[in-house]
């Protein structure tokens, strides 16, 4: 997820695995040996997928020609499955119409995230293509070589004379065979010792904007299956009553009145509340309303979120508790500066609010626990499921479902709703499969928010208007402390995710101090699409605009001046400025703002253009975006992620906020927590900086610059700086 983190992760592994390539081939080879029963399949799937295939674990070809790719990466809309299929098929030369992708699990050697040193399977930090780049191309290439070799042996011709295209091997003599016809013979061959990959110049799929997602059709006719759609024989549906405040626990509950509801099955206590179980969702909802729960609130968070922020603001004026960066002498330079700018920013808690409320299905059959869900961290969920069930991870079979939006929410250290489903099924003595389905209110009030933060910023200018000092004190909760990742992500009191985007501020300033004060609050927090950069980029990029104004400089020109040592930033910024026509004045009634931010290995520059259609209203008309994400494997999907990231970023800045009153979350549904709607969406133009570098992030990096670019445009229109978010909280244009 974060380069520093992965360095720590990968160091011990590097000594045993000479290269990523050998890791891939090793896994392929072991797949050949362990060809039977290597991968879990349900009985229905087993019939459908014909025989277990030796090309496990990455690719299987069924007798009917259907190709299944087993993805290490989780699909939540960002197109990871399509990206991986593109990498495989660039080398495999299969027919796209035959290709499907499903989630793999349970084999860390094969599926461990290589951006994390391969130590665990998981999806996060926009690393899917970085991790998959060589692994899945190599898998596709090795399989193609074996199919070609099988054909050459069958036909008695040199392998150099056979060619492959659209799932068919052919020879100039006119002989042809489909991949499916060759698969049995191919599976008896040794995996090639060396697997050359196509040179960039030979690519026909990678980097081609015209290549379309294989999964769009199933998402337009209702046939795509999500966890909510899982239905098993005898399955019950459970709705959870969670504590009204974070940290409260069940004292007792009374479900006697619920027994009158038709379809009610049972109400059972689980670790975080009460599960109300019924034959279907409506019965469960009706029964839930009749169950009363008494709570123990002694240890619960009881504060208002406003009070939490006041405490943060107080701390922001004191000395930071930890140092994230210290170049030169920022305090001394500020004291000596001709002009000092100061600003304080306040960021609220934010909910992921994905459209599919959290859910999972658990079922125990003959000693095997099966769990259907959005398994973003499969190894962990398999382990936690086994712990609850009192069995071993190898007796836990996961079904990795596509999910209706994620944005970070499906990757949780305690397995969250997955654990609830297993606990509920266990409480029913494994008598039947159980689907736990959260309501929107469960989801909105379930915590795991983007933490609230306060930033105190100072900048010093010398008498010539040159910036000589920069100070940024960040105050808020740590995402990583107390989790499995603490050892890797928290160093000397600094949680990397609290300061990313701020500690690595790219501008060439001689004296820079970035401090962090990690605060305690009883509100569960989590990564939220783009994580630290969701607040740091806003504080840095809007404050730099204030510096530009104080220095009497154009905001793009000043950035370019200060980015001399960062060619990727410069290139992205120049491209965005050029495409937005920055060198010409904005059209009558239009106002523009700029921001640039690096996150997850990619650099994104955006120029937002707004109008004020009537007093008090802001309309975001257009956002021009330039992105350097290394090699863009699917350029149209990079564009889609930038479009979506911009919408997601604007959404939070304009009108998203989770607040607490006496510890209870005020927002429950989309009437009070208000994601962006279509009428608020600007036109978006995405330009990709040409690159031959390895792929870097795309899912998250579109988010950070959107808010500050907008805020900087709003300043041009209104001369107002917005430092308390969201805009809806008191700002009028």
């Amino acid at each position, binding site marked *: 997820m974060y380069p520093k983190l992965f360095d720590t992760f990968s160091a011990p592994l590097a000594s045993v695995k000479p290269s990523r390539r050998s890791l891939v081939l090793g896994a392929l080879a072991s797949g050949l040996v362990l060809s039977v029963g290597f991968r879990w399949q349900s009985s229905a799937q087993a019939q459908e997928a014909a025989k277990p295939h030796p090309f496990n674990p990455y690719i299987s070809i069924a007798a009917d020609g259907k190709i299944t790719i087993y993805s290490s990466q989780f699909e939540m*809309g960002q197109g990871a499955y399509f990206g991986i299929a593109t990498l495989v098929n660039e080398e495999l030369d299969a027919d796209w119409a035959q290709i499907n992708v499903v989630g793999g699990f349970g084999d860390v050697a094969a599926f461990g995230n290589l951006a994390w040193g391969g130590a665990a399977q998981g999806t996060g930090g926009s690393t899917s293509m970085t991790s998959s780049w060589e692994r899945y191309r190599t898998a596709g290439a090795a399989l193609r070589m074996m199919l070609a070799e099988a054909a050459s042996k069958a036909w008695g011709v040199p392998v150099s004379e056979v060619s492959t295209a659209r799932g068919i091997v052919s020879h100039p003599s006119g002989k042809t065979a489909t991949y499916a016809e060759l698969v049995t013979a191919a599976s008896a061959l040794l995996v090639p010792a060396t697997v050359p990959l196509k040179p960039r110049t030979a690519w026909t799929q990678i980097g081609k904007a015209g290549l379309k997602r294989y999964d769009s059709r199933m998402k337009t*006719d209702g046939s795509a299956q999500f966890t*909510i759609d899982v239905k098993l024989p005898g399955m019950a549906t459970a709705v959870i009553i969670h504590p009204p405040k974070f940290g409260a626990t069940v004292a007792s509950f009374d479900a006697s009145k619920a027994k009158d509801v038709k379809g009610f099955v049972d109400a059972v206590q689980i670790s975080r509340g009460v599960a109300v179980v019924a034959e279907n*969702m409506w019965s469960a909802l009706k029964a839930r309303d009749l169950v009363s729960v008494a709570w123990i609130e002694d240890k619960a968070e009881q504060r208002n979120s406003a009070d939490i922020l006041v405490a943060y603001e107080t701390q922001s004026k004191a000395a930071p508790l930890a140092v994230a960066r210290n170049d030169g002498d920022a305090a001394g330079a500020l004291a000596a500066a001709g002009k000092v700018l100061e600003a304080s920013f306040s960021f609220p808690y934010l909910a992921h609010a994905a*459209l599919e409320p959290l859910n999972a299905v658990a079922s125990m059959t003959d000693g095997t626990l099966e769990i259907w869900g959005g398994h973003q961290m499969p190894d962990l969920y398999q382990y936690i499921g086994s712990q609850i069930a009192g069995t071993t991870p190898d007796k836990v079979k996961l079904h990795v479902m596509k999910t*209706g939006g*994620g944005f970070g929410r499906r990757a949780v250290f305690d397995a969250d709703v997955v654990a609830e489903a297993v606990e509920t099924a266990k409480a029913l003595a494994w008598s039947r499969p159980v689907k736990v389905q959260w309501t929107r209110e469960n989801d909105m009030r379930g915590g795991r928010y983007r933490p609230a933060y306060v930033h105190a910023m100072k900048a010093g200018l010398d008498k010539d208007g040159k910036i000589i000092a920069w100070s940024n004190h960040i105050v808020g909760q740590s995402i990583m402390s107390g989790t499995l990742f603490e050892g890797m992500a928290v160093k000397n009191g600094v949680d990397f995710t609290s300061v990313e985007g701020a500690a690595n501020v790219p501008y060439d300033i001689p004296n820079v101090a970035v401090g962090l004060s990690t605060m305690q609050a009883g509100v569960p927090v989590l990564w939220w699409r783009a994580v630290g950069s969701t607040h740091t980029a806003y504080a840095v990029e809007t404050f730099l605009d204030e510096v530009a104004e104080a220095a009497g400089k154009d905001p793009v020109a000043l950035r370019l001046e200060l980015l001399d040592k960062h060619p990727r930033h410069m290139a992205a910024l120049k491209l965005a400025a050029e495409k937005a026509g920055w060198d010409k004045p904005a059209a009558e009634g239009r106002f523009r703002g700029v921001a640039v931010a690096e996150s997850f290995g990619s650099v994104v520059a955006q120029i937002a253009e707004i109008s004020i259609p009537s007093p008090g209203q802001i309309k975001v008309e257009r956002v021009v975006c330039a992105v350097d994400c290394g090699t863009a494997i699917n350029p149209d999907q990079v564009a889609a992620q930038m*479009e979506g990231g911009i919408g997601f970023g604007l959404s939070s800045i304009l009108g998203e906020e989770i607040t607490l009153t006496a510890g209870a979350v005020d927002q429950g549904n989309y009437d009070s927590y208000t994601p962006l709607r279509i009428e608020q969406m600007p036109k978006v133009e995405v330009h990709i900086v040409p690159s031959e570098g390895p792929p870097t992030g795309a899912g998250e990096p579109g988010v950070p610059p959107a808010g500050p670019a907008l805020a900087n445009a709003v300043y041009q229109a209104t001369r107002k700086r917005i430092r308390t978010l969201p805009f809806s909280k008191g700002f009028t244009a």
Partner: protein
Amino acid sequence: MIKVNINGQDREVDAEPDMPLLWAIRDVLNLTGTKFGCGLAQCGACTVHLDGQPIRSCQTAIGDVGAGRITTIEGVSGKVAETVQAVWTELDVPQCGYCQSGQIMSAVALLEQNRKPQDSDIDEALSGNLCRCATYARIRSAVHEAARRLEA
């Protein structure tokens, strides 16, 4: 048993009359293309057609449907629907895809009534359909492109 007409078929639904149409469609009739997102008519993921008009099935009781003809994403058909679905696929509108059944049901209803929608018409017709992936720019392009093809 409650009699309803869904996707052109008369069906008997074993449900209490207060069950929202959404849960009758999903849990009883096993048509899962229609999605649950909020239960409060705030997100539009549950949009279906009742006699051709888009409605939020989470706010309509199965007992109130009467003789009305229900159409879900699985049953939506005709030139407009086919064009919309084809364009949606060609432009790669969906990301996670979860809201898209509802988006398409709203878009089809709009184009059935207005073959030349302006941006403001699209905003109005689709404002009730949240997309947390923010595929809105492509949704707007897709509606315009579908309108263009239907005119051609």
